[in-house]
């Protein structure tokens, strides 16, 4: 018997048990979706997590925020002197409005000491910060985030180096000069670089706020493993209405969430692989009993026992392939729709050829194994008894 004929005959056999075959195929589809999402999500999270940890600030910092009244230089000195803290710097921010072709939009003015700007951005030096111009704000010169200087819809430049940039803060207007165009950062740090305008702290404290206060303090740690201890000390010593968080702790907490979600998906997929396999076993066994005389005929016209075995195994494999293809399409669809927002990052399941192959192979193997016992019984049927069977 040729392989193609085996597949053809198996397909015709499935039409005999259409309902049960469709049910089993649906089970396979669920298993494939759950399995590929679990694998895809795990892989995506691990990659994003590793990337996040690779950025020194996230892995190695504790952040204290206090929007009003803000942190003072005295607060920074206290936070900076905590054990395990290597350095501490302040970040001042203010909401501002910028004129756009369609009206106004909100941006964040960020003022930070030039020496600490790379730490804040998660860069080793500032050479990668801008696409054009200077990376350092100076006087009224500002470095502008990409969604401010670039039209998001068309990509055309709204501002160029040397242009004046009018902003309005708390109803007062201020005209800055663009000295640098930041390159697009996307969701790469805990601050949104693209929606920000970086200004010189001296100018910020002169023209925007009358006082030297900071909305956030970034404490750079000597050792990431001490973050819990530093968080506790900072909570005790920071002024009232501050909040303290450690990006690494948040990441690992979300990691816990993702891994329990993963475990749940894996549980569902194992369950549906198992149930489907039982179903295939049952359906194949019923099919063998219903087709005893057919098996006798096949043997009488020259099919070997091995041919009969292969036909029933092929039926199980076909159910798996049909269900698997349906599951594959659903997985690709789900990968587009499903994502988990993690701070400013979206983790979407990455459906790679490997995860797809793994999630297709598992139900296929389980189902062929489940069909093996009834298929072997079919192959072993005595043709004389099968033909006499009423």
């Amino acid at each position, binding site marked *: *018997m*040729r392989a193609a*004929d085996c597949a053809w*005959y198996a397909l*015709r*056999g499935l*039409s*005999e048990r259409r309902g049960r075959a469709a049910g089993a195929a649906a089970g396979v589809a669920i298993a494939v979706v759950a399995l590929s999402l679990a694998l895809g999500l795990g892989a995506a999270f691990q990659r994003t997590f590793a990337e996040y940890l690779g950025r020194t600030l996230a892995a190695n910092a504790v952040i204290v925020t206090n929007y009003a009244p803000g942190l003072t230089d005295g607060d920074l000195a206290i936070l900076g002197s905590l054990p395990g803290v290597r350095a501490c710097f302040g970040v001042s921010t203010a909401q501002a409005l910028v004129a756009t072709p369609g009206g106004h939009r909100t941006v964040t003015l960020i003022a930070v000491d030039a020496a600490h700007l790379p730490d804040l951005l998660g860069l080793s030096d500032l050479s990668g910060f801008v696409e054009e111009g200077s990376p350092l704000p100076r006087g009224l010169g500002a470095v502008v985030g990409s969604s401010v200087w670039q039209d998001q819809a068309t990509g055309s430049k709204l501002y160029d180096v040397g242009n004046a940039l009018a902003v309005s803060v708390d109803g007062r207007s201020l005209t800055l000069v663009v000295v640098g165009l930041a390159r697009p950062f996307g969701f790469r740090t805990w601050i949104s670089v693209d929606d920000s305008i970086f200004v010189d702290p001296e100018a910020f404290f002169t023209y925007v706020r009358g006082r030297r206060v900071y909305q956030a303090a970034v404490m750079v740690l000597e050792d990431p493993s001490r973050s819990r201890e530093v968080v506790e000390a900072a909570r005790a010593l920071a002024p009232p209405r501050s909040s303290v968080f450690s990006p690494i702790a948040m990441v690992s907490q979300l990691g816990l969430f993702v891994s329990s979600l993963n475990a749940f998906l894996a549980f569902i997929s194992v369950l549906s692989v198992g149930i489907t396999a039982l179903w295939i076993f049952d359906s194949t066994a019923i099919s063998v009993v219903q087709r005893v*005389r*057919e098996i*006798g*005929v*096949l*043997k*009488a*016209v*020259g*099919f*070997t*026992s*091995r*041919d009969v075995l292969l036909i029933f195994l092929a039926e199980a494999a076909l159910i798996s392939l049909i269900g698997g293809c349906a599951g594959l399409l659903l997985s690709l669809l789900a990968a587009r729709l499903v994502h988990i927002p993690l701070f400013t990052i979206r983790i979407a399941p990455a459906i790679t050829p490997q995860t797809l192959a793994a999630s297709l192979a598992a139900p296929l193997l389980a189902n062929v194994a489940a069909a093996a016992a009834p298929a072997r019984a079919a192959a072993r049927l*005595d*043709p*004389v008894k099968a*033909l*006499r069977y009423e």
Partner: protein
Amino acid sequence: MGMPLVEVRDVWKVYELGGARVLALRGVNLDVGEREFLAVVGPSGSGKSTLLHLIGGLDRPTRGSIRVGGVEVSSLRSDEELSRYRREYVGFVFQFFHLIPRLTALENVELPLVARGVDPRERRRRAMEALRIVGLEHRARHRPAELSGGEQQRVAIARAVVAEPRLLLADEPTGNLDSANARLIMGLFRRLIDELGVTVIMATHNLELLGYCDRAVRLVDGAVAGVYGRGELAKLAGG
């Protein structure tokens, strides 16, 4: 009669049924010549089906020897050897037709060629030719349920001869047919013998059909109780 196609020598078949022994065949001797149309008659339970199954390699005798065209069938042991023997030598026709309900007439006829790995175009051509011989090429696309009993049996006969076997084994082929259809099938067997050169062994208890046969063997309780040549068949048919 020259060299016989089938030689059955002292064949016994014993079934063990929960301690009880059933002697289905008790020392049967029989020769069947090339292109012969042999009837095996006898009461129900006399061992006709058993004899056909043994000759067709579906089962193995408890004792004795069966040779078909030089092949010692009784010594074939493995499933592989028995399957190959059935593919090369034998076509079966059954009382209940045993067509596969979900396949069309043409696909049913193709099955023996599928087992032989014949490529699809070639086997379609040969299956159509076999359907033409039984006069049913216009029914090729029909499923068994859409055919009459007589038509179903003719499709089954096309299936039995499509791979050009030397031996056609028919077990009560007219048992489920009216007498007009039964005579049609007998005429068809005669034509297959003349046109394809097959040898037909038919188990039947319908004595009226013996007029179409060359010879008849009568089994009683698993043993040969009489052999009847052309001249004696009419007498047997009469009563």
